[in-house]
Each structure stands twice: as structure tokens, then as C-alpha cells.
């Protein structure tokens, strides 16, 4: 096949009419996730853009039961939903927590860690747009080094690297962790299929382009996401049982600047800063390679 074929399940759970910004990666991600998980799914949404995207009461675009919950409680509310369903004898329902990076890396990290340590039977998805977008683009611990946000202005951009959430989750020895990209829908779908087939705590980290927050043009959302993977800023891999690493996509690499230059949030970066980012990306890639090598 010359054109790389992309196919995703035909079923359409999420609907139209939601209020995500044009080109929103979080909307694309939800759509594909639900295509896999299907109608027997409950979605738990903490405070984040998706609490708005879903639509105002009494409407909801998601198409399966949704519980909106407090910002820091995605993992634990999902845990409770699982317990409640079990109490009612409904074992065959997927429970998916769907949180932003703020709700995952920061304020929700405690309850996420708790749920991971207890190996709760939930699928936890972090759609990571690398800042608090709902409240107007403030930095989160998922914001990458050097990026502009409204709380890390260009004359004082973020000076600490992005938290490595996958490493943090791997340290909990949960059965399944994956990174996924909206630009690789088939890969994303496969990961949700795998997650669906496993019991216990599953964590899927989706890089989710945000045109207003990244100062990018909406039509390039997929392009940028793909470049994140190709530049190895956001490699696509899986971690089984917290230690078995497996790369799922390995496209021809491109320099990080290919990825950075399409986003206004990096526009202020000097060539030296871009070099710095390239070095960081390279060393993290090497680390990942080592882990993959020592995995099987």
C-alpha cells in the first residue's frame, strides 16, 4: 500500500454540535476513543475544557453516560463509578476517566496515583494540551520547557521541563500505559482496543493540539501532532506492567524545530533554546530506546 491506510471503527458515539474550538484535538481524541469503547461506557470528566465541550445542561454531546466531577477527582470518581456499577452487577461497562493535563499532572495527580497504586479497574485518559486551557492558557506541569503561557510570559517562559507522567505512572506498575496521538488514529484506536481488553488500571496519554493555546492554526492540528511524533517530542509507545516498553510508531525523524515553528507559543525561542530542546528530546529518546532494549 502506497498510502498508509487509516481505518477506525465506524460506530459514531460522540455527536456533533459540541463547543470545542475549531481544530480541537481533545474532540478528535474523544471521538476515536468512544468509537472503540462503544456505548457500554461511562465517561468521567473533571473540570477541563471538556466540561464545556460536552455542552450546557441539559445537553450532552458524548452519547454515553457522563459524570462531570471536581477538577482533582477524575481517577477517584471513576473508581467510584466502577464500584457502583459492580454493586449493581454491571461488570461489562468501560469506565473511562477523561481529564486534561492539569487534572492529571497537577491537581488530580494524588487521586490518580491512589487509583493507580490500587490498580483500579478504569481507563484513565489524559488529553494533554500542555496547559490549563479552560481557564485561559496558564502553565501546568505538562507545559514544555520554553513554552509561552499566560503565566509564563515570553520574557520568562517555562523554565522547567515537562513532567514525565508516563514514568510516574510506570512507577505504579500498572498493567497498561500508552501514549497516543490524534494524528495516528489507527494507532490510537489499537491502544484503546488493547486497553479495553485488559482489566485494572490503564493509562493513555494523548497529546492534544489546542489551536488557541498553542497559537497555531486550526487546520494544522493534525500536522502539528504528527510532527510531535516525528520529531520524537512525543514518541508513541506502550508500557506493560510498568517496565515492558514497546515503540508502536517509528516514523522518519525530523528536527524538533519542524514541530516548534508551527506554534506561536514557541515563537520567541532562540536558536540556542531550540538546540537545547533538541538535546533534551534526543536524550529522552535514547533513554526510551534503552528501556525498550531491556524490556523483552
Amino acid at each position, binding site marked *: *500500500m502506497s498510502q498508509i491506510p487509516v481505518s477506525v471503527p465506524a460506530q459514531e458515539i460522540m455527536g456533533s454540535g459540541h463547543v*470545542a474550538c*475549531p481544530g480541537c484535538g481533545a474532540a478528535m481524541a474523544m471521538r476515536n476513543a468512544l468509537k472503540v469503547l462503544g456505548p457500554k461506557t461511562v465517561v468521567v470528566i473533571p473540570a477541563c475544557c471538556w466540561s464545556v465541550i460536552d455542552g450546557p445542561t441539559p445537553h450532552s454531546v458524548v452519547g454515553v453516560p*457522563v459524570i462531570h466531577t471536581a477538577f482533582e477527582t477524575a481517577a477517584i470518581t471513576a473508581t467510584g463509578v466502577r464500584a457502583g456499577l459492580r454493586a449493581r452487577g454491571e461488570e461489562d461497562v468501560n469506565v473511562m476517566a477523561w481529564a486534561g493535563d492539569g487534572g492529571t499532572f497537577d491537581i488530580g495527580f494524588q487521586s490518580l496515583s491512589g487509583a493507580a497504586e490500587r490498580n483500579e479497574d478504569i481507563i484513565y485518559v489524559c488529553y494533554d494540551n500542555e496547559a490549563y486551557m479552560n481557564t485561559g492558557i496558564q502553565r501546568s506541569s505538562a507545559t514544555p520547557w520554553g513554552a509561552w503561557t499566560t503565566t509564563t510570559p515570553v520574557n520568562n517562559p517555562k523554565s522547567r521541563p515537562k513532567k514525565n507522567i508516563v514514568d510516574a505512572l510506570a512507577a505504579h506498575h500498572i498493567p497498561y500505559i500508552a501514549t497516543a496521538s490524534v494524528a495516528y488514529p489507527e494507532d490510537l484506536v489499537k491502544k484503546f482496543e488493547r486497553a479495553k481488553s485488559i482489566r485494572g488500571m490503564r493509562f493513555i496519554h494523548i497529546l492534544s493540539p489546542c489551536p488557541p493555546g498553542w497559537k497555531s492554526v486550526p487546520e494544522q492540528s493534525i500536522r502539528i501532532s504528527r510532527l510531535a511524533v516525528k520529531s520524537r517530542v512525543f514518541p508513541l509507545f506502550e508500557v506493560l506492567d510498568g517496565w515492558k516498553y514497546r515503540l508502536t510508531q517509528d516514523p522518519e525523524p525530523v528536527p524538533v524545530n519542524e514541530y516548534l515553528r508551527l506554534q506561536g507559543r514557541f515563537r520567541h525561542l532562540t536558536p540556542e533554546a531550540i538546540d537545547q530542546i533538541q538535546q533534551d528530546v534526543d536524550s529522552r529518546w535514547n533513554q526510551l530506546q534503552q528501556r525498550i532494549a531491556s524490556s523483552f
Partner: protein
Amino acid sequence: MGHVLIDQEGKPVFAASTGRMEWNHTGSWRYMRPRYENKLPPCTQGCPTHEKIPQYFAQVKRGDYRGAWEIILEDNPLPGVCGRVCYHPCEDVCNRGEFDERIAINALERFVADQNLDRRYPASFRQPSNGVNIAIVGSGPAGLSAAYQLARRGTAVTIFEAAAEPGGMLRLGIPEYRLPRHILDKEIHDIQSLGVEIRTGQRLGTDITLEDLQNRFDAVILALGAYRGRAVDLPGRHLKGVRSALDFLRELNTHQPVDLPERVTVIGGGNTAIDAARSARRLGADVTILYRRSRTEMPAVREEIEAALEEGIDLKECCTPVEVLGDESVRGLRWIKTRLGEPDDSGRRRPIPIPGSEAVLETGAVLLAIGELPELESLPALGTTGSRIAVNDHYQTNLEGVYACGDVADGPVGTVVDAIATGKATALAVLHSLLDQKPAANQPPVVTYDQINLDYFRHQSRPALPHLDVRDAVQSFTEVNQTLSPDTAEQEAVRCFSCGTCIECDLCLIYCPDVAITRGSNGVPYVINYDFCKGCGVCVEECPREAMTFEEELSCTN
């Protein structure tokens, strides 16, 4: 227990949803609008007849060879011929060439034709009579193409052909090892099946007059070709054994006895030269080609030159003849080396003899293949540009109701496909003038390489085209090149980017964050629901092949 959380109107008294979001027409946010619009692939643009290449590839992929054939037939009634002898300018501009290797378009065209050798045009192919009656003179590709396009549109067509059989250079010039005659016959028969009458042995100027035709027909199309060898000023040219390469080929192709000496020299670098050389080779001669420029400048089809070399023909590049040696008959040829100077009018670099580099070549025959010109002496009323009939943009000559196309007319000459293209254009121009039938609307823009979303493609090489082993090839006039296998043809069609032409890969549908694209019905692949499309443009941007258009919302009507 009654309802606790539902009020009298049946509404929940806390935040619980009762419906979805379809009421929210986010289409109102849109200021840019996507729509499906195929663009012009460069190959289609590059093909003089504008064959819809990715479209018929789509049918090849599906195994619908008849469908593929019918798509080609829109523009070209001679795919079996073109698939064998066309110099395929489409491939030169193929976007895939910049990525890895250009698509074997020509081989696929032949494949499609060959898959349909037993098929006839569908009944629907011929439209009801339009009451127009046209005479065409000459049954080469230009005349056949014009006749075909006219007849399909319900026109009565009569072709007057001087030769005993129709086909022009396809029959008289091009040798059988390149174009088996049953292919040509089949495609001519197909054209005749539309009611085209071909009267052979009818020479304009001898058997019929132009005035007569002008009186009897609504219009006359002259497609006389060019078959008189260009004169040369070469000492010794009158010696026995010096002759036109085209005459040699014509004799061969009309199965007249030809006898050749052991050593033959061909002068020229075009198709006639190569064909004469390869034919002579097949007749057992030792052949040398003399060409005054370098090999890259040779006008012959590249693959033909390569085949000639493989077949053991000696090519002397940058050599020009000085004198034919001999008493009565040719014994040898004195030639001189050239170097290339500044470009001349034709844009090619002018060959300049290098003094002192002369040498002599032993040869028993010299075949001149330095170009052919039309014979217009019998048609003095026609305006010319010197050697060819002058025509305007609508292929009209200076005489009322008389058109000209193909090699006889001024314009792109010397190739089969240009003849087919000008024949088609002339037919449409005639109908336009007689019936006010509008030619097709504006062409959409051409897809450039940088508009192809390369992320969706993997490198893959062009297939090797099957052909006879050279040792066998030179033994006879059996066709050298062979047709692709269906598997290879399919793979190659799949390899095509399908520039500007939707292949229903679903990417637009998959990526739309607003679930605004659905599959259509009745041949419409996709439908955009503008009630919800926010105009993000992701679909347009991600379409690997520019089959969608993104434009300002205000500038379009729904």
C-alpha cells in the same frame, strides 16, 4: 415513591442531560468553508489529451477494467496504440517522480487497453444524431481521433484516406514489433462501430477535391500528416542505397520485399531513425545511427533509444555526415565529430563540427531520417506557415469550414498523442462552431508536489516493465514490450498519489473533530454537514491529495 428529581413538566430538577447537542448549529462559527473539489493532476494536465489518469487508476484498483477503459475513451480512442508508442509526457510531470519514481502511466494505459481487447464500446456510447455531416481527410491518429469524438456526439463522419488501409503512420511508419497490427485494427474497428465510414484509396487532390468536400459536407478536417522526407544537401546523396528511412519503413510495413546490405547507417535521432535502425537490425543488418547532437537531445522516445542500444545498434552521438562515398552504390560515409554550441531556434544546442575529427564508416546503405514534412502542393489555396497548414486557436484554416490538425497543421507535431489531442480539439471546435456546443468549463488548478501530504505515503519503486529477451527480440518483428500482470498493474495504480482526485481514503471523515462529515450515497462519496462544520480546515489540510478546497465563507453560496 413519586418522582423526586423530576418536576411537573418532566424536567430533571438537577443538572442531568435530556438530550444531545444537535440543536447547536456550530456551522455559524465558520468563516472558512471546506468542500470536496477534485483538482487537476499534473499527469492529466501533461497528457495532451488530458486522460483522467487517477480516475481510471481507481477502476484498475477495483479490477473494473472496463470502467477504466471507458474513462480513457472519454479522451482517447487509441489507448492500445498510445499505451505502446506514446512518449508519455504525463510521466515527465508525475508528482510521484519527486518522491521516488514516476508512475508507469503508459504501461497502465496499455494494460487497460489490453484487458479490453475483446470488448466493444457500450451501447450508450453513441449519442443520437446531431444532423451534422463532416468529412475528414487522412486516417492517422489525428483523423481517427477527430472522427471518433464527432461520431460519439452523433455526427455523421466520412474519412477519405489515400492509402489502402487506415491508420496513417501508425500503420505505415511504426513497425509491428512496437505496435502489432491487430491492436491498431481493433481500435480502428471500434471507431468504425460508431458509424464512421472510412473510404480508402481516396487521395485528396487526385481522387477528390477540397471544393467538392466543402460543398458536400458541413465542414472538412484535414489530417494529412507529414510523410515526405526532408531534403538534405549531402554530397553523394544520389548514390544507390541512399534513401528515406520512412520509405524503407513504409515498404516494410506494407509487406513489400526489401533488400538490405550487411551494413546500414541511419542518419537522425527521431522515432523514424530508431525504428528504421531496429527494423534493419531485425532484417539481419549491422546498424549504426549517426546523430549530430548528444543522446539526451534525441527526439525519439527514450525507451526506444535504450532498446536500440540493447539490441546492439551502434549509436554515434555528436557525429554528422559529411559525404556519402561510393561510385554507383554506397560504400561508405565520411562523418565528422561535433560539439554543442549555443541553443538554436528549436531550443536545442546547435551542433558545430570539430575540424580535423573526420572519419570514414563502411556502409552499404544510408537511411535518412531527418524529419518529415507535409505535402501541400495539391492544396494551393490553403494558407501555410511555410511547411504546414496555418490554423487559428480553433483549428480553422483560412478556408471557410476547413480545419486542420495533426502533423499537417501548425502546432504541436510529430507525436501520436498530440495528433489525437489536436484531432479531439478540432472535433470539439467544429461542433462548437456548427452547434454552439460549449467546450468544457475552466480547468481546476493543477496539484503541485508540495500540496501532496507526503506523510501518508511510503516509498515504493516503479515496477520493471516486462519485455522480450533482447536475443529473441532481434530475431523477429514480434512485439517486444509486454503487458503488466494484473497484480503489478494494481500495485502501480495504488502507488499513484491520485493527485487532486479523491480516492475515498476516509481521512477527512476520520479527522473531523465535529463529526461533520458522513459518507454520501448515489456516487457522492462524502457529505459535509454545514450545520456543524466549524471550518477548522483539518479535513482540507490532511487530505493527502488536495481533493478538497478551503475558501472564505462569504465567497460561496450554499
